[in-house]
């Protein structure tokens, strides 16, 4: 076996030497996209995940789109969230042609911002900068490189708010609408939770950790230093520890079967999440109207939890890019498209001009007539800008380990922070 293994390795090395020339990097045509011709027929393919297809199909079926672009036919390739991003990563890593438009969740955008691989939508012929004045600032910043390249257009964003059950709050005699700070939130949660009846105040202690960090979307490296300022990160872990110590959580892993069942059964009183979570509640977890309300996060903290971007990979042939760009432009900057998307799947518009639309002022029956969209819009306009980096994914995964350690009580916030920092330094720097 040993000698055979050795000869095997030898053969491999030989073969390797023979094949090495194949690795000359493939040629790339950097020719500019042709201008869009309204009279030509186009077919645009979109790679999407989750329920984006449902929303965009509604947009493309609208009279307005059909009148503007009668010659564009759109087809979809939809997978689940993980599958979509895995496929896209593989195709782009192989530097092969992808769909004309690829949707990217904000967590995946960072890698492309500095490394390249997606068309610069600020450059001619797209000139995306000129038409995106009304798109919310922080989302544009996340997709813009240091050199000013725009790698994708934000189509929806996720202003973070506190969803809570009005009936449970009333029963416990608490008010969640203007929480001063996290301590008050925890005090209120203690009144909400009723472990004897299996009523929990919050899904899991880790559910709040990302909020002081602006949802964990960016901000992991400041001036070349990871996890800075320290106080901010330790306070996030300290918050987790306090929530855990309050013993009000259901210990439910987000998106697991039991997690959804707990919401279906009405056993969890609050959840911190992006505006789009309303769609999940409405269609599936808790369809009965009037039960849920929306409040600002404690201390009016502003954060973003998710968001979708649309991009044109560099591997898309130049001839197909013009029509792809028209579709992106329509989805991201046309108010009616933004509102249809919002209506269909609760994906909150990235286009700020629609926040003035009367529909944003309407009471929403699902939230017992509360004017929740004003809260979403207010948060959206005030989300801080954070720099994304290509290391965000790794840092987030290591950080999640620190959070779990604090939840499980095997490390203090201070110690968990230090371990995470050491691991990040050893892994990345």
């Amino acid at each position, binding site marked *: 076996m040993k000698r055979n293994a050795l000869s095997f390795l030898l053969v491999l090395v030989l073969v390797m030497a023979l094949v090495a020339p194949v690795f000359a990097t493939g040629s790339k045509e950097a020719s500019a996209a042709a201008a869009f011709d309204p009279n030509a027929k186009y077919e645009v393919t979109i790679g999407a995940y989750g329920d984006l297809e449902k929303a965009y199909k509604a947009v493309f079926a609208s009279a307005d789109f059909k009148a503007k672009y009668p010659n564009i036919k759109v087809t979809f390739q939809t997978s689940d969230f993980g599958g979509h991003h895995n496929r896209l990563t593989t195709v782009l890593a192989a530097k092969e042609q992808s769909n004309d438009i690829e949707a990217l969740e904000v967590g995946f955008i960072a890698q492309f911002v500095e490394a390249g691989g997606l068309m610069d939508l600020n450059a001619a012929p797209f000139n995306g900068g000129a038409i995106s004045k009304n798109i919310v600032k922080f989302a544009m910043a996340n997709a813009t490189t240091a050199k000013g390249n725009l790698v994708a257009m934000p189509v929806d964003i996720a202003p973070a708010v506190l969803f809570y059950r009005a009936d449970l709050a009333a029963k416990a005699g608490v008010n969640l609408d203007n929480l001063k700070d996290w301590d008050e939130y925890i005090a209120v949660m203690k009144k909400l939770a009723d472990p004897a009846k299996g009523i929990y105040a919050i899904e899991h202690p880790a559910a709040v950790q990302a909020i002081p960090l602006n949802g964990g979307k960016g901000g992991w490296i400041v001036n070349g230093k990871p996890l800075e300022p320290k106080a901010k990160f330790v306070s996030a872990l300290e918050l987790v520890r306090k929530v855990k110590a309050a013993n009000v959580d259901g210990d*439910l892993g987000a998106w697991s079967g039991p997690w959804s069942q707990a919401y279906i059964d009405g056993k969890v009183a609050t959840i911190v999440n992006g505006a789009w979570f309303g769609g999940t509640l409405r269609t599936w977890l808790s369809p009965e109207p009037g039960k849920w309300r929306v409040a600002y996060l404690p201390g009016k903290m502003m954060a973003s939890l998710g968001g979708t971007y649309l991009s044109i990979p560099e591997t898309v042939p130049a001839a197909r890019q013009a029509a792809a760009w028209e579709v992106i432009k329509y989805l991201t900057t046309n108010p009616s498209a933004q509102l249809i998307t919002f209506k269909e799947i609760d994906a909150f518009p990235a286009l700020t001009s629609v926040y003035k639309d009367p529909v944003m002022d309407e009471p929403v029956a699902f939230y017992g007539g509360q004017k929740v969209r004003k809260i979403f819009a207010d948060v959206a306009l005030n989300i801080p800008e954070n720099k994304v980096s290509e290391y965000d994914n790794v840092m987030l995964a290591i950080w999640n380990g620190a959070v*779990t350690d604090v939840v499980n009580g095997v490390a203090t916030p201070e110690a968990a922070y230090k371990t995470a920092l050491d691991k990040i330094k050893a892994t990345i720097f």
Partner: protein
Amino acid sequence: MDKLNARRRNLTPYILISPFFILFCVFGIYPISYSIITSFFNWPLLGNAAPKFIGFDNYANVLTRDPYFFKALYNTVILLVFGSLMQHVVAVPLAILINSKIIRSKEFFKTTFFLPYITSTVSVVIIFGLLFDTNYGLVNWVISFFSEQQKIRWMFEPWGIQAVLAFILNWKFIGWNMVIYLAGLQSIPSELYEAAEIDGASTLRKHLSVTLPQLYPIMFLAIALSIIGGMQIFEEPFILTGGYDNLGGAQNAGLTSAYYLMFTAFKAYRLGKGSAIAWLLFLVILLLNGINRLAIKRLQR
């Protein structure tokens, strides 16, 4: 004429085995060379930056600086012992029991034990994720009859994660191994047992002194397959502990070597370093199979 026939016959085996080598040349060499070559480069998975040749730096980084590689290897070996090698500890007695004269409806038991082999990882994780759930799970429900203690948080405690993973692997592959050992048992000449009976050996004694040694060759093969499969285990822990966002759950308990190499390549976007981990893993598998071979040889002596 005869010579021609002989020549033709000499060529026959090469023609018969040629499909493997043709397919290997067409589909195997390029990917394998690609991963060997990338392992010597700082090779970003995505983007336009040119890969930079860095010699053995990826290997050195993994072996000296990386905070997860050895942790992942340790987890993998633990899983190998309690998930994959344990199967053999259960499968051998199970095979002996089913093979014994006192058991009827052998087919029923064989089929039932083998059935889990056909399940996909996704189904398995969905099923066991629910069975081992803290609040709704059957396992905790059963335990609640025997113990007043707090419900076990299988998916959130490091040992719980490893226990569930090991259980899944045992459940899925014990039947496979049991059937293989049944084959071994049926080829043991009955004279050996008769001789032992004449010596007045007890049942246990008989199995220890006759059955086990006769099974060594087949054990070597079955364990070799377990090592190759077990050291490359990826999907079960990956899906069970939440994928790329978590690095294997609480205290990285579910982080296996293959999981970490996938993370490094596809989430940290360092294809070069991921390739280096893949080849180190290959060497570990060869090493373990060497140990397996030595151990069985020792036992046989």
